[in-house]
């Protein structure tokens, strides 16, 4: 069973002749342990797709299933709990709270979920340690570099055993080295059994994914087939590379 499944999901705004389809008839299944990239230009519906997958927005039609349960059939409370306990979001602008230190930002979702501040901090600290940020724990967002802020945002998204990681252009304005670090963290989360979706227009980021889905005008138009073993490209390279 897929951890996240979108069935015939559509989202439109306006009505009649002014109706705009942001997302149209999208089917998407994401297993635990796999990283899916959704690639498309601005305005292709990527972000809308992600907010629907994360239950932040309602589809106009179609259904979203998380662990086999229909999100549309849930009560408001159930949905809020799902967002707190199961889904982690990473946004382009990181969205860290300026008045909280790194570890407080990371442990906040646990506190909101009813864990004591002290216990939440212990868990938050262990996630920061895993991501190599232990020495930044007491720093405030404005004391962190862009790359560090985004790593803190990822720590916050995966804290407390959440199993669905949704990221919208997670490398934002970071340089390629930091962008790579972000993708390595997402991949590491997947190795621990998280299902992840990253939406991006950046092919280098998307190429970290197990599968890349291409979106155009709100529709899935294509997707990559799983690549053969990594070594095959080297064989191909050495035989086809022109020699001088």
């Amino acid at each position, binding site marked *: 069973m897929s951890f996240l499944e979108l069935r015939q999901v559509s989202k439109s705004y306006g009505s009649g002749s002014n109706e705009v389809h942001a997302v149209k008839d999208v089917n998407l299944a994401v297993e635990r342990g796999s990283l899916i990239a959704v*690639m498309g*230009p601005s305005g292709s519906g990527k972000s809308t797709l992600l907010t629907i997958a994360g239950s932040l927005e309602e589809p106009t039609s179609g259904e979203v299933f998380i662990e086999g349960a229909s999100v549309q059939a849930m009560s408001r409370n159930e949905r809020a709990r799902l967002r707190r306990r199961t889904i982690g979001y990473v946004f382009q602008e990181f969205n860290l709270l300026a008045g909280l230190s790194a570890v407080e930002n990371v442990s906040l979702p646990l506190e909101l979920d009813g864990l004591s501040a002290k216990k939440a901090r212990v868990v938050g600290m262990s996630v920061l340690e895993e991501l190599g940020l232990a020495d930044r724990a007491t720093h405030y967002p404005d004391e962190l570099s862009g790359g560090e802020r985004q790593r803190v945002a990822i720590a916050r998204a995966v804290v407390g055993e959440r199993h669905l990681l949704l990221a919208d252009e997670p490398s934002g304005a970071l340089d*390629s080295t930091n962008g790579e670090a972000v993708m*390595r963290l997402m*991949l590491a989360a997947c190795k621990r059994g998280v299902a992840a979706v990253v939406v991006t*227009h*950046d*092919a*280098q980021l*998307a*190429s*970290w*994914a197990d599968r*890349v889905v*291409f979106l*155009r005008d709100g529709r899935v*138009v*294509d*997707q*990559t*087939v799983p*690549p*053969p073993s*990594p070594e*095959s*490209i*080297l064989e191909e*390279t*050495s035989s086809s*590379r022109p*020699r*001088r």
Partner: protein
Amino acid sequence: MSVRHAILALLSEGPKYGLQLQKEFESSTGEIWPLNIGQVYTTLQRLERDGLVESDEAESEGPQKGFRITEAGTEELSSWLNTPPDMTSPPRDELVIKVLSALRVPGVSVHDVIQVHRRYLVELMQQWTRLKEDESDFDLSFALVVDAELFRLDAVVRWLDAADGRLKRAVAEPATVPSGPRFARRLVVRR
């Protein structure tokens, strides 16, 4: 790929044997470019003929023969390192021609043609990225070579994205066709 200059670069560290040069060349390119020993010796012979390297005396012919860089070789190497390679675009880029041709063929969607190539390129990028996934068996030269490939492929994907967007806008807001004769526009390729 200039094997000649790569060999000069390896010799700039100190005298070496042919077999050693072959091994070091391969490891310095992250094992991505294989080089056969015959090519190493042919290149060394030419470098010696041109006075850029010199070898041990004739009695030690064969694999034990050592080579070292000459002063002229050091100068040649320095000048090569600082000379930009020819980056003028090739006169005909096959992918560009395919996309331009797709515009002319009735019944063909240029967006679909672009997508075929985009997917192929992203799949290729996935393979390269997978190679750098495991940081532990991943040396610096290899990382640099893989990055170079990824940036090269990424540039092509970006061009396809830009072309896709430009074509979409052109359909939405057709440009007014100039009435006079068109300016002859040619890419000037300096060689």
